[in-house]
């Protein structure tokens, strides 16, 4: 028993959540139900983890799913992150539109896709997982139906997502055409030494498809518009949990199936790293809206996570999980403060340090972590992925370039901090303080620091 119960539970809970919406229209009931669902999900994945811990790797459905210790540990962590997100944002989610319960249900369905991406052992499951991950997102992006920007985001995301799905399918087809199997293990065995042009094109198409999902440049165009247009309560979920899951899928495929032909795709990944870091960081500098800046910063962070894809070693597989958790928690912390403000520009943050010191300090800790300042987990996250890439023998110039780009990122992250502490506001910022939420934000900020102090908790 145990192993893929997470997928089952997420699917059932999603359906349950839709029924809750039928039974009650009260947002308080729906919120409690939503929080409970995600709590159960954490419990179930934890149960899965303990089962896998005892029994070892489990295979399901004719080897289509393979649940290993790393994957199930990732499931626990990502569910816990989702739970923290729901705890902090459930209030805001119900304010987005009218169909409150459906938003929670869609997120639970997304979790099904997340778990599939971490455990797939078959290219069809990968494809299904990606679609399950994406389609609810198209809907969520447009959940604020009255808002033209939200509608625009939804449509743009869908159109471009459809385009990338085509590329993904094309890639899978080419791989299947040359191997004759969808199974990861078979592909790995087939691809040894030199490969012919056909599968090589397939591999690059897959890189492009995944690059789209993780918003790596030059496939990143949708990111800023979609993240910006999506209701602020939803954006952090898309920018963190979904993106990290896409990375896990990315790594599983490229380390598992294409590990033996690393030579053929490392150049492409290296180029993606450089372009993504450059575009993400440089464009973020000029943004006037903090929300849009965070969208570009999520592109920049993806550039760092790509280092883990590049590096074919144990450090990389551990560090992507660490990076994902660290990045997720820090982003949630910043978005949680951002959503409180009426004005999303930098000026909107003016004087927050004086008027709401607690919100300001938690946001500061999270921004420091995103910028990669030591002691926070963000520093070690960057450190680990760069170490992994160094071990793999990535050209040192790219590492230096990445560090320089991280230095640029300090500029736009610290602009927020400067606005909060060193600029006084002309008008009073009114924020309804919620003690429960404040406690959660403090816990979140403490977690960001604690993970930096004890990275072994996730790595070990």
């Amino acid at each position: 028993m145990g192993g893929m119960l997470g997928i089952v539970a997420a699917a059932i809970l999603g359906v349950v959540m839709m029924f809750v919406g039928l039974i009650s229209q009260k947002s308080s009931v729906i919120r409690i139900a939503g929080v409970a669902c995600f709590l159960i999900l954490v419990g179930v994945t934890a149960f899965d983890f303990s089962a896998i811990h005892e029994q070892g790797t489990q295979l399901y459905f004719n080897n289509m799913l393979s649940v290993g210790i790393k994957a199930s540990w990732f499931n626990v962590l990502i569910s816990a992150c989702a739970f923290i997100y729901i705890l902090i944002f459930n209030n805001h989610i119900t304010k987005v539109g009218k169909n409150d319960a459906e938003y929670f249900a869609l997120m639970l369905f997304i979790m099904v896709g997340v778990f599939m991406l971490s455990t797939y052992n078959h290219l069809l499951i990968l494809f299904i997982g990606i679609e399950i991950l994406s389609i609810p997102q198209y809907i969520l992006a447009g959940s604020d139906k009255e808002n033209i920007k939200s509608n625009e985001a939804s449509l743009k995301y869908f159109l471009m997502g459809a385009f990338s799905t085509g590329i993904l399918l094309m890639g899978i087809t080419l791989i299947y055409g040359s191997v004759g199997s969808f199974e990861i293990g078979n592909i790995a065995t087939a691809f040894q030494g030199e490969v012919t042009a056909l599968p090589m094109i397939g591999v690059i198409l897959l890189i492009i498809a995944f690059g789209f999902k993780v918003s790596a440049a030059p496939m990143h165009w949708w990111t800023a518009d979609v993240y910006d247009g999506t209701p602020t309560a939803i954006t952090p979920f898309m920018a963190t949990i979904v993106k990290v899951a896409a990375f896990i899928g990315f790594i599983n495929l490229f380390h598992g199936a294409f590990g033996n032909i690393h030579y053929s795709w490392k150049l492409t990944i290296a180029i993606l790293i450089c372009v993504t870091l450059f575009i993400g960081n440089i464009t973020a500098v000029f943004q006037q809206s903090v929300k849009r800046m965070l969208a570009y910063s999520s592109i920049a962070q993806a550039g760092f996570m790509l280092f883990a894809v590049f590096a074919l070693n144990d450090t990389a597989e551990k560090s992507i999980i660490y990076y994902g958790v660290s990045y997720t928690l820090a982003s949630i912390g910043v978005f949680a403060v951002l959503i409180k403000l009426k004005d999303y520009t930098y000026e909107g943050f003016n004087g927050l340090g004086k008027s709401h010191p607690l919100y300001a300090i938690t946001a500061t800790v999270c921004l420091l972590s995103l910028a990669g300042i030591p002691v926070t987990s963000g520093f070690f996250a960057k450190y680990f992925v760069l170490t992994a890439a160094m071990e793999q023998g990535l050209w040192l110039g790219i590492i230096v370039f990445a560090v320089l780009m991280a230095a640029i990122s300090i500029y736009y992250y610290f602009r927020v901090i400067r606005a909060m502490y060193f600029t006084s506001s002309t008008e009073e910022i009114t924020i309804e303080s919620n003690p429960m939420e404040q406690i959660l934000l403090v816990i979140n900020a403490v977690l960001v620091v604690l993970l930096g102090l004890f990275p072994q908790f996730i790595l070990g």
Partner: protein
Amino acid sequence: MIQNIWLVPLFPLIGFLIAGLGRKQLGNAAGWIASAAVLASFIVSVMIFFEVSAEGFKSIDVHLYDFIKVGKLDIAFEFRVDQLSSLFLLIITGIGFLIHIYSIGYMKGDVGFGKYFAFLNLFIFSMLLLVLGSNFIIMFIGWEGVGLCSYLLIGFWYHKKEYSVAARKAFVMNRIGDLGFLIGMFLIFAKVGTLDFQTLETLSFKGVIAEPGYLTAIAFCFFVGAMGKSAQIPLFTWLPDAMAGPTPVSALIHAATMVTAGIYMITRAHFIFSFSETAQTFILIIGLTTALVSATIAIRQNDIKKVLAYSTVSQLGFMFMALGVGAYTTAVFHVLTHAFFKALLFLGSGSVIHAMSNEQDIRLMGGLKSKMPITHSTFLIGCLAIAGIPPLSGFFSKDEIMMNLFIHGTYGKVFWVLGMIAALLTAYYMFRLYFITFLGEFRGGDKLKSHLHESPALMTMPLIVLAILAAAGGFLGIPEVFAHDAHWLHNFLTPVIEKSLALEPTIHHLSHSAEYIMMAVAVSVAIIGILLAWGSYKKFDAKKENKGIEKFFEDKWHWDEAYENAFQKPFMKMSAFAEKNIERKGIDGGVNGIGKLVEFASDKLRLLQNGSVGVYLFLMVLGMILLFIIQLLSNG
């Protein structure tokens, strides 16, 4: 007690913290607390000294904790307790304590009273680290610490511009020396990968660092460090200027302890210097030149402290001469006696300055003998000691240096003659100072005259104690010719430098009669010096201008001006040029340019994001095609 050696530096550190943090609240108590801290250190040092002087004692490294442990680099925070360090502990804490007590009287009423004692304690702490360190790193921490305290105390009255300039000068000159020290450490580490004295000694005598060129380079670098700290030509001009600090500071830091750090360091690192004859000869020549040059300057100075300062430089030169001929214990012996009589002389001069309402010009003094009996008699003892009149301490140590010079190699006798000239000058300038200051008529006017008084007991007690030490200190090193095996200090220190001593070719001792003759010569030279001074200065004409060579001496050989023209002015010009062209245009321009470039790129890249899905897809496909092209090209 030896395992508790950490107590010795701990007390002054605590004293520093208390006096420093409570400097506003404590008032006069700060002085007493600081003194008590040093006294406590002194007591522990005495206890350790007795343990160390026990029969058959072997040096002990007391490990406190691992200071730096990264990869191959392993620096322990470790104290080395042996005969050499325990002797220095006594000098530092003993004389340090006397000077602390004296300072309570001297600094009374100064606004920076508490700060002064905090710095003084910090100095003692750093100096103790310097002598206790069991490797070059710990020694270097102390080395830098004393440099810092010296800077802080020279510029203690920083509101006077020339004082802070003097402090800066001392700091910069010391930094030049420190650079030598650092490079020396790097050279050693690069070769053998350790900086621990014990290990280095073993390795060195096994011949691991045997390339003579490399060894000489190391020795030379360390000697540059010693030059800076111990004010040798060419890095000596800071010490006379350092007299800007309060007089007890001059006594403690710039006479008795810090400036002898160079001698200590070379003795500690004897395992390097003993292997490099070139470096030793170099040290000998520098020491001799310094002794002569600064003695000539000292005979024409009119500031009481300047005379003593140049005298200190000259005496340090004597010590380096001893090191140059490999006579480590002799050098340490002179450090010891010099600490006694020079601290005494400085404190005596402080007492005079105190009475003269901070007037330091000896041309305005005279006839102080009757007004200040204790200061006068103790000062006289100091003068006799430094001049080398038996049986006072200076005679013994200086005689030993001369003897070692005489028997050293082919040119030993030449060095001896030159050394004797320096000794003659020593007696001359000291007694010139004495005659002008204490004998004759008072020349300072009636107003000053009415103020003249003997200093309080707090100040005269240390003078008396130091006078006794300066008088009797020489008996620690009675030469072989007077009594067999009576040179206590030599026997005491031998275990430290045993291996270096074994290297020396069997020293052909002089016959007893020859030694007696040389002593007679030395004493007569001293007496001649005194008589010459008496001839010229029994009647002092304050208005007489110096001419010719005398003027040249008075102007300190124009060293400062030479440095200014040779280094300072060109350097300033270079700086101004660099500031204008490299800093403003180059670096600032570059940094701002990068910022502008990023903004520019950001501004342009932002425009690509125009919101149209068609454009996005087009750009994406363009990117894909480029990726494919690159992949194709890379596969050839």
